[in-house]
């Protein structure tokens, strides 16, 4: 869906970076293009997915949860069953293989909740790469368990103490490291944001989710789903499952953003619903910003959606009307989190719970004849502490 050679999606995307990085982005772009058509690379990646990630991931029909969704049939694409517990591994293995292909030995990554950091540290351990993860100091405190996990996997975790000390600042710090060490280092960006080729490349590594799902749905119910739903922070799991359905005009594509305390309160991370077009972290997209173009802090109960930008392809899909974006509040997400846990025995990531809350609304709207496919992008083990606190369960 990239509409030109330098990574634009309509008026979104592109490259807004220091010249120092242009060479590395061009090198990466070329490596990605070559890998796409290189059978050896594709075989190696697919073999890793089969024997390490655990692909293809299954689809579970959630019959009891469907009762909360107006009786619509609910199908869960189980990315939570992947090794490391989320869809993140798809992209990380792809980029780690590209890193080796480019002859680089060090990867850096940013992380908010720690999922992408853990996945990066995992891939680095598997492929023998040095790994440094930047994480906002606030997040290292909120997600101490994941910090320990990354260290156990052999990665170095650097707490970021500038700005709001969260994901946005971790990305800034990773970019600074990259500008300095670009000759030896690959920046393993964790979502479909950032300068070209990241939005396209990360999407290409995640589109396996939609490719598998589309085939699986045809096998399961003999037709396509009426709607595909996914949560959107940067938007990698959403673009991954949407992509295979882009040309199926009968299929509604619905992205659920983090509405925090409510978009009207200003305390949210719903970038498309509540933001404006701008430039952040190297790409033109929707941004939470003030009248002067200064980035505003985002708020969400889910650290993985707590980001004031969004992938440029989502900005484009929103603008042309191919995908719809809605905001789900913290409370709505936590209700869905609890309902899925109790009705299906699946504890979802709080990020994913936003998509489930979306299904409860859309299911009621579309009725019991409809089939909804939801990307169950991650498992909720990492969120036990946050959820226990939210529901008042003593630890």
């Amino acid at each position, binding site marked *: 869906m990239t509409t030109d050679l330098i990574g634009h999606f309509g008026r979104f995307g592109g490259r807004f970076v220091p*010249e*120092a990085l242009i060479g590395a982005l061009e090198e990466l772009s070329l490596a990605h293009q070559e890998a796409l058509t290189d059978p050896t690379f594709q075989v190696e990646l697919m073999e890793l997915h089969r024997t390490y990630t655990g692909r293809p991931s299954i689809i579970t029909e959630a019959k009891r949860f469907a009762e909360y969704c107006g009786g619509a049939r609910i199908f869960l694409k189980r990315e939570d069953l992947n090794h490391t517990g989320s869809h993140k591994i798809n992209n990380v293995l792809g980029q780690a293989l590209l890193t080796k292909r480019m002859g680089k030995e060090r990867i850096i990554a940013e992380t908010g909740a720690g999922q992408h950091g853990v996945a990066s540290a995992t891939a680095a351990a598997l492929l023998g790469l040095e790994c440094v993860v930047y994480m906002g100091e606030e997040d290292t405190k909120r997600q101490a368990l994941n910090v320990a996990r990354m260290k156990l996997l052999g990665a170095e975790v650097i707490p970021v103490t500038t700005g709001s000390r969260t994901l946005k600042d971790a990305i800034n710090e990773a970019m600074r490291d990259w500008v300095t*060490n670009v000759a030896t280092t690959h920046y393993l960006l964790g979502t479909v944001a950032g300068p070209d080729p990241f939005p396209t490349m990360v999407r290409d590594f995640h589109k396996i989710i939609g490719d598998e799902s589309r085939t699986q749905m045809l096998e399961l119910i003999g037709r396509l789903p009426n709607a595909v739903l996914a949560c959107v922070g940067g938007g990698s799991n959403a673009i991954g499952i949407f992509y295979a359905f882009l040309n199926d005009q009968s299929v509604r594509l619905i992205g659920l953003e983090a509405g925090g305390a409510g978009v009207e309160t200003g305390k949210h991370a719903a970038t498309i619903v509540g933001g404006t077009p701008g430039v952040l972290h190297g790409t033109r997209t929707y941004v939470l910003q003030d*009248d*002067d173009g*200064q980035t505003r802090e985002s708020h969400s109960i889910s650290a993985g959606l707590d980001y004031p930008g969004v992938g440029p392809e989502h900005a484009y899909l929103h603008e042309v009307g191919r995908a719809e974006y809605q905001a789900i509040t913290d409370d709505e997400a936590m209700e869905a989190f609890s309902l899925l846990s109790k009705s299906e025995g699946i504890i979802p990531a709080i990020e994913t719970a936003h998509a489930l809350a979306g299904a409860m609304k859309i299911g009621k709207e579309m009725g019991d004849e409809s089939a909804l496919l939801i990307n169950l992008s991650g498992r909720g083990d990492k969120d036990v502490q946050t959820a226990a606190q939210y529901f008042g369960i003593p630890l």
Partner: protein
Amino acid sequence: MSLLEESFDLARAENRALLIGYLPAGFPTLDRSISAIKAMIEGGVDVIEVGLPYSDPVMDGPVIQRASETALNNGFTTRDVFKVVATSPVPTLVMSYWNPIERFGVEEFAQELRKVGGEGVITPDLTIEESQSWISSTDKERLHRVYVVAPSTKDSRLTEVSARCSGFIYAASLMGVTGARTDISSAAQALVERIKKVSKTPVCVGLGVSTGAQAREIAKYADGVIVGSAFIKMILESNSESEANLKVKSLATELAAAVRR
């Protein structure tokens, strides 16, 4: 000929490099940034670069990050940058990340800057591919357009970027972010030599330059020397406005002497 171009000519006639000093607008307050710039000029800085504080400065090290945060916390708004430029008696450019310019309105930004006598803009994260509206707006307002190139920039790209620069070309002395370094790498000289092969536009070297000795080295091969973080440090390390301005002026004096060949 623009005031900036006249400054380069004058410096050349005096057999020295131009000294360019950077300070963010609104740091630590709007008034103090204006008085600190005055102190820089009294000490012998030829050209001023006024930084536009931004929430996500990926090309900047800890010192400028901290200064930008302070300015923003003290209520800096984009319009303040024009107030600062308006008070400067020497050729003055703005250095800004792209989003605040785009948010202000590309054409409007160029018009306002021209109105207050600005000479041009340095855009560290704007690539030539994304520059269509910027090129037409700056051409229309006769503003200099300065892009930053790096040691990693390939020759073919140097040619293309240099061709779109006017006033001067900003050569980053090293691979990295802004902030004082103890050594200036040999990469800077090699980069300047490569640029000189493809462009007649003056080349100024910045990133990491903080001492007279470093400025002296760079002045041997570049048309200008850019110093930023070192001035901010003087302000951060002072207890009062007068102390800060004295230190700023004294650093400017040291650097101004050093750029004479």
